[in-house]
């Protein structure tokens, strides 16, 4: 997925007018702590100062540029919530005087043994920021398509990148991507060691845009609706496939992809069909975005529900501990999802 984002940014630089890709360690020599920005021609390193990063992005956008900036880990976005809020309200506050076409990307969530400050999720904070659009891919192709949409959209868009999936390869190729992963790596991954003379060879990429607000129904079924995104999504698919194979229970699995705006019609149709709902994410569970989705389900489909709707979220804890026993017992795991799906499908109506 890191390569997919990189290719999308390259496409953005070439065809969509991206003027600046910047953040801590985003430029050469490193090209991002997750290699997301290697070899990009407009990538540059900033001081270690998140306020300057988002502030400068705002300024660049005001002056007609198209900035894409990175917060190195979403945990380090918390000292600039005020700037996020401003970015979301400047158009509204000025009665439409200024558009703010900025993209912020940041790695999100657990799964890389990142301890307290490289494991937290940001979507519940982020979805509170009116004026923003928030996306989170679960596959490389979606990462590419959502990133292009984020760049094209003339409003602030936050791209949350599930850390644990950044090294995962996609089943589907990006238009223009060579089929051989080694070939792609030779073309666009920076070499180990001295990189000063390295230049990437970009494949002939094509446009592939996933509109904001459109979910992806990745599995269809009748025993329940699972709504997820980002890192837990493939786990939900895996659990659903296992239950289908072993017990014949099938599920609609919705990859939300776009958290705000979200694809309400996809959710709504599925809930009406199954009457059973499970919402899964890995963020901490008090005042969690999944609770908002649940509220919408209750608001509009309370009487369509066959059984109690469920949420599966991270525990309300001050942090995710380094030792795996902390993470395994505070962030939803495959087994937890399977159990929740089983209960959902088997509860008598």
């Amino acid at each position: 997925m890191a390569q997919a984002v990189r290719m999308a940014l390259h496409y953005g630089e070439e065809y969509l007018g991206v003027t600046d890709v910047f953040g801590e360690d985003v430029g050469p020599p490193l090209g991002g702590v997750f290699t997301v920005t290697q070899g990009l021609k407009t990538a540059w390193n900033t001081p270690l100062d998140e306020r300057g990063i988002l502030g400068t992005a705002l300024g660049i956008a005001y002056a007609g540029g198209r900035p894409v900036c990175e917060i190195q880990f979403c945990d380090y976005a918390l000292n600039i919530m005020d700037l996020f809020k401003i970015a979301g309200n400047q158009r509204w506050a000025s009665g439409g005087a200024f558009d703010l076409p900025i993209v912020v990307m940041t790695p999100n969530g657990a799964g890389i043994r990142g301890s307290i400050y490289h494991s937290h999720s940001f979507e519940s904070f982020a979805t509170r920021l009116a004026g923003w659009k928030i996306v989170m891919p679960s596959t490389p192709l979606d990462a590419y398509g959502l990133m292009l949409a984020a760049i094209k959209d003339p409003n602030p868009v936050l791209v949350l990148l599930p850390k644990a999936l950044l090294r995962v390869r996609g089943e589907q190729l990006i238009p223009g991507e060579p089929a051989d992963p080694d070939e792609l790596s030779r073309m666009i991954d920076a070499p180990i060691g001295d990189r000063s003379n390295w230049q990437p060879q970009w494949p002939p990429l094509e446009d592939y845009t996933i509109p904001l607000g459109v979910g992806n129904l990745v599995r269809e079924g009748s025993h329940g609706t699972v709504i997820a995104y980002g890192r837990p999504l493939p786990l939900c698919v895996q659990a659903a496939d296992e239950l289908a194979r072993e017990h014949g229970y099938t599920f609609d699995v919705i990859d939300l992809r776009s958290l705000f705006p979200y694809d309400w019609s996809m959710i709504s149709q599925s809930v009406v069909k199954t009457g059973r709902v499970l919402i899964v994410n890995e963020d901490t569970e008090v005042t969690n975005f999944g609770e908002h989705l649940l509220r919408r389900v209750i608001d509009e489909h309370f009487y369509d529900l066959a059984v109690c709707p469920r949420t599966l979220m991270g525990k309300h804890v001050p942090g995710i501990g380094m030792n795996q026993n902390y993470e395994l017992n505070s962030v939803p795991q495959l087994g937890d999802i399977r159990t929740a799906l089983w209960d959902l499908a088997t509860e008598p109506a």
Partner: protein
Amino acid sequence: MPETHEDPPDFEDELRRRATRTAAPAVIRSGREAMSVELALTVFRQMLRTRALEERSIKMSKSGEAYFWIGGPGEEAFNVCLGLQVHKGRGPAYDYLHLHYRNAGVLLAMGMPMIDHTRQLAMRWTDRHSRGRNFVGHYAVPEWNVVPVTSVIEVQYAMAPGTALVQKRHGLKNPAENEGITIVVGGEAGAAEGDFETCLNWSTRPGMELPVLMIVTNNRFGISTDIDTVHAHRPIADRAIPYGVRHETIDGNDPVIAWHAIDRAMRYCRRERKPYLLEAMVSRLHGHSSSSGAQRNWKEVDPLAQFEQKLIDAGAIDAATVRALKEEAKKEADDAVAQTMKEPEPTREDVYRFTYAPSPVDAVYPHDYTGLPGRPEWPPR
């Protein structure tokens, strides 16, 4: 100043207004600096207009025509001199302005009609800066690169490097296109927020120094807090030293001084494409805002009265002309308010408007925000 229903301390009006020279001078001087009489009178007239607008604004907040007032009486000298020297226009070839909430004088001097200010103060739908959404003085003027003012102290300093970065790169092949600078303004108390340092640091990256004119209007107070009680007794301008940034602290109440200091600073930023920090000592004549009463503080130096006296002393203007100009300015403000109060207010349907720019890649909000996804409360326009 009958508008504020407060009497100035006694002094002999006649004495004050008696000019000491007779022949009309060519220039007005302050120490070694001088300004043509023509320019001085222009500055003076804009200062008068600004003051008239501010006093009418305070009155609005007390009369119920408006609700909250904040502004810059006491900063007219500096702000007018700044506004008159801005290269105004749209896009990176022109100056960007990242202002705060005391800069009516800047905008009036640039040519903003008074009614653009009073409409915001009276929270009208016709308010071009915010559609009746924001506090007064929270301007946003895309044609003049005035980016939206926000109430959050100091964040403008974190944004300024962004516009300046675009300007630094813009029009490199055409020198006239590469003279735009970024001007950012805030108070002295706010300089304690990290954003101020961000601006210094991001404007001095080696090889990428940025044309940012950082301005601090130092009125010595943050609401009720005296800067001398919370900050080392040193100029705010010294903050430039660790970054090797040029800097100066000036008497912002003297238009002759202010004019030239701004000129020097702008010239440096325009030509050298590097930052400059200018600290202007100014007055706060009506306290922090209407929340603290907005009463006139007669202990503060009044830059307008001081300049008026100087012009009279120099024989550049006479008391009758001053009186006429004041009347004219007052009438201009009254007329703006009268018109404003006839104009419509925003309605229920306007709550969501202007949240999102139209987007061809958004399936839910292709035009604007309409309420939660799948639950449009207002049809898209």
